[in-house]
């Protein structure tokens, strides 16, 4: 009656399952024996067997005397409060001062920002996230060049603390030196196929910070609905959203951006064109291409109409707003899966093609559109990310355009080609978390090596990182969190930790405990396998 014998023979070989069971048993033991579970694993960790204790009422996180940031840095102030809560939770209520042996108590964590703090800035691709952490009695020290590294270090510090079997908060003396392997470590959420309440997005940002992710790729609109409430073109969401309550107001958007900033997370909005735009058509007349059936105009519309000047006037105004509303240096312009049938059916488009000398090659028309759009974005001093088709279909692209590789087939060779052409790349092909399967699929995400493709060192340096994508066809607020976590955590460690950190057994053990920690912090992360959390 249980699934052991259920799978296609060979797929769930008994041997494999046997070892999984063994793992499960091990994890239980491990969970019982208190020790820290670091996720993602830092670059260099030296742990001393010397234990220190923390008394909730007699421990604080503060600014180091030589820090360039002080109490006026609200980003750090908020982080101190947050991490105090994550570390002690409800135990903070116990005010009785525990009596510890002299010389075994950790009383303070001092956070020192060394260079210009960037306290009031937004994080960017080039933000410095490195930090060093030294835990020594009686004061631990966290040093970072910028606040962004301090945020990562606070997370690590909180992961070092555990409760021993008497419930005492305990930490090992330790030295940690850490920095990320890739600067772009993202999660894609899709708020068009299903609307996600703002609360859900904020919760996702919390969990992202626990996993040292630093980019929220917000695929905000698509064919199905247009929840982004534009100031310049309010009809877009008035007509294009599911209902008037399924929208993100300017206030919602700025709330998400600030919440993300406080956690060192960038928000990159995606406004995918010229395909995937059905919902735009409802609120913006003549934007989409009318499709034809024979000589007659049909009832349907296709991708954005690339031959009208009004299209580019609209896009200029629209993206002017977007580039202001979203502070990040990058905007994602989509460009994937453009269907040519509708363009082909339309006699005006045909004429335009002839005039431009495109023949019957609609990829040229698509390129024409994309080039114009990229120019518009460049004129606003923003950089662009596009899906891989834009690279595949274009001979000339503005240098510096970032290509996101999403097609699973031959993604390594795609990375190789993109970087050989000198373009920066982001990998998400092997990390489509919406494609669920039975069992422990996190292992397969974990074992991906992003730089495992043919290319020079120079090419490899062009890989900026990757993204775990949770497309929304079958995902909404009801199942988003357990579907994302801890599966996305596997991607989080792959993008943060050293290339050599690949041991599945150790990862299973740490990740099991990391998921229990996420549970304690209010993230309903699903189980990795049989077992329990306190």
């Amino acid at each position: 009656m249980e699934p052991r014998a259920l799978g296609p023979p060979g797929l769930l070989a008994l041997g494999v399952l046997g070892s999984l069971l063994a793992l499960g048993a091990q994890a239980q033991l491990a969970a019982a024996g208190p020790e820290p579970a670091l996720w993602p694993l830092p670059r260099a960790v030296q742990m001393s067997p010397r234990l220190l204790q923390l008394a909730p009422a007699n421990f604080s996180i503060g600014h180091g005397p030589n820090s360039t940031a002080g109490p006026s840095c609200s980003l750090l102030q908020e982080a101190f409060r947050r991490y105090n809560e994550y570390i002690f939770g409800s135990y903070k209520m116990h005010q009785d001062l525990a009596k510890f042996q002299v010389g075994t108590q950790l009383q303070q964590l001092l956070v020192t920002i060394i260079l210009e703090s960037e306290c009031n800035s937004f994080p960017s691709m080039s933000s410095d996230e490195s930090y060093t952490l030294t835990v020594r009695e009686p004061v631990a020290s966290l040093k970072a060049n910028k606040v962004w590294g301090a945020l990562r270090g606070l997370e690590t510090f909180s992961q070092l603390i555990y409760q021993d079997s008497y419930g005492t908060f305990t930490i090992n003396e330790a030295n940690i030196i850490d920095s990320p392997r890739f600067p772009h470590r993202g999660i894609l959420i899709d708020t068009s196929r299903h609307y996600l309440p703002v609360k859900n997005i904020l919760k996702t940002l919390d969990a992202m910070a626990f996993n040292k992710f630093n980019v929220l790729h917000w695929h905000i609109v698509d064919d199905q609905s247009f929840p982004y409430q534009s100031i310049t073109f309010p009809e877009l969401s008035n007509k294009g959203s599911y209902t008037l309550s399924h929208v993100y107001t300017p206030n919602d958007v700025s709330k998400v951006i600030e919440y993300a900033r406080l956690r060192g997370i960038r928000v990159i909005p995606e406004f995918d064109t010229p395909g995937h735009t059905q919902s735009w058509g409802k609120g913006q007349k003549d934007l989409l291409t009318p499709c034809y059936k024979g000589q007659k105009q049909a009832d349907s519309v296709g991708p954005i109409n690339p031959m009208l000047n009004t299209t580019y006037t609209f896009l200029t105004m629209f993206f002017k707003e977007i580039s202001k509303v979203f502070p990040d240096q990058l905007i994602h312009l989509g460009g994937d899966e453009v269907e040519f049938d509708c363009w082909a059916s339309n006699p005006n488009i045909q004429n335009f093609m002839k005039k431009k000398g495109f023949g019957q090659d609609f990829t040229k028309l698509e390129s024409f559109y994309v080039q114009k759009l990229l120019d518009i974005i460049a004129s606003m001093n923003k950089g662009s990310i596009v899906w891989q088709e834009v690279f595949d279909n274009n001979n000339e692209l503005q240098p510096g355009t970032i290509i996101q590789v999403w097609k699973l087939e031959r993604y390594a060779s795609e990375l190789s080609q993109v970087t050989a052409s000198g373009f920066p790349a982001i990998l998400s092909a092997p990390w489509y978390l919406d494609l669920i399967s039975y069992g422990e699929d996190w292992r397969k995400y974990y074992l991906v090596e992003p730089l495992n493709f043919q290319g020079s060192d120079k090419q490899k340096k062009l890989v900026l990182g990757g993204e775990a994508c949770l497309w929304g066809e079958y995902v909404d607020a009801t199942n988003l969190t357990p579907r994302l976590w801890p599966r996305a955590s596997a991607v989080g460690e792959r993008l943060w930790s050293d290339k050599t950190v690949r041991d599945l057994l150790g990862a299973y053990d740490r990740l099991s405990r990391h998921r229990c920690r996420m549970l304690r912090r209010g993230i309903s992360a699903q189980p990795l396998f049989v077992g329990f959390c306190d």
Partner: protein
Amino acid sequence: MAGGALGLRLLLLAALCGVAAALWPWPRSVQGSPRRYCLGPAAFAFRHHAGSAAQPGCDVLDAAFARYRRLLFGAGPWPPPSLSGQHHESKDMLVVTVATAECNEFPTLESLENYTLTIDDDQCLLTADTIWGALRGLETFSQLVWTSAEGTFFINKTTIEDFPRFPHRGLLLDTSRHYLPLSSILDTLDVMAYNKLNVFHWHLVDDPSFPYDSITFPELARKGSYNPVTHIYTAQDVKEIIEYARLRGIRVLAEFDTPGHTLSWGPGIPGLLTPCYSGSRPSGDFGPVNPILNSTYEFMSLFFLEISSVFPDFYLHLGGDEVDFTCWKSNPDIQAFMKKRGFDDFRQLESFYIQMLLDIISAYNKGYVVWQEVFDNKVKVRPDTIVQVWREEKPVTYMQEVELVTKAGFRALLSAPWYLNRITYGPDWKAMYNVEPLDFEGSPEQKALVIGGEACMWGEWVDSTNLVPRLWPRGGAVAERLWSSNLTTDLDFAYKRLSHFRCELLRRGVQAEPIGVGYCEQEFEET
């Protein structure tokens, strides 16, 4: 394509009365009409018919009235009755009448669940043979009520006659691989009632943990649970679950799976499990329950005496699946016992154990359900044993297995195609919906032996973090297959209603996941 034509008719009908599209599972016969009546939430009440066998004080119905009032109208405040505009005739009560009132009893496999619902100019009446049927009718009534854009509650003129296709419509939860908090189980019982499911198959214990807090053998949970304080079900918890289920017309079928899947029993009952050998020495590992010791059967007698009195349902589930023979094989005492008995096959030893166990259970006047291996291994069982078919392909396809089981004269339960824990990308509910449980070669007598089926949610990768969205609305597909007519098979019609039903579940606070793109008026928000 009779099904298709029927589906089309149903679609037309649903369009006609607009709101019948909300019905899940689809009743036997629905006659709708565009004529509608409004319901005033402040005044509306459920009442016992003067001639009903049940009267105020029948707790099953009284509690259901309160529940459905809250589900329909919430806690208020409600908009005042609109005086302007269209005048609608209003209904201020649903009158309920039952022929027999088993108000203090438990539902059984034999309980009748049929009902008739008549909403017309003259009456608003729910008639049923039993209170259990009335519960099903109340659910249907609640699905018929809809709200206009202005917030007025309406119900259309409707006549529904309804009864289930199969008497056993179950859902299995596994509380051993992961512990499920009491509240998760109670919430699941609520949603089962919304889906007209009527058996909670509680796979309480298994290899990884023993959360059942036995009164007779407290060491079992003390040593065998994940945590003997927080990860157990106390006698009080169990009682609460059984009563909560009863009030919703749901039976609780407890499973204590033996002789395999019992590793967690070992720490609490030394000597119960077979010591495995490595060469001539015990390896320190343990295998299935040790079938050669008298002490095993003494323990089982006492343990199941408790179980028989704690769980009121006539049936117990005794498991019996996936017994691994390697440990038995390694043990010289077992070998000697085999020789003495003249067994040359370990299946004979398994049969020996199971027959002893079945005799114990029979002596307590309980019936039993077993997994199909017990039948496959030719264990001699009582003719009224129920065999649960769970293996998809082996030793034969599940439909062939059902054929064999019923041919041998046993009653069968089907769960092989309905393992909800097995997830795949996309609308996998459709495959579960398309299953026809009687699609096997067999006589009408054989078909009548299929008493229903169960959707199973095994717990290897499921706990309270992901249980609800994984269960619903996918479990609904199984629920309709087991309740509705064999002609209710149109997928488009089902998709429309199931999407609608999932939004209704969200409205009722259930974290049911989407089955396609779209939205609900009220989305789920994390707290």
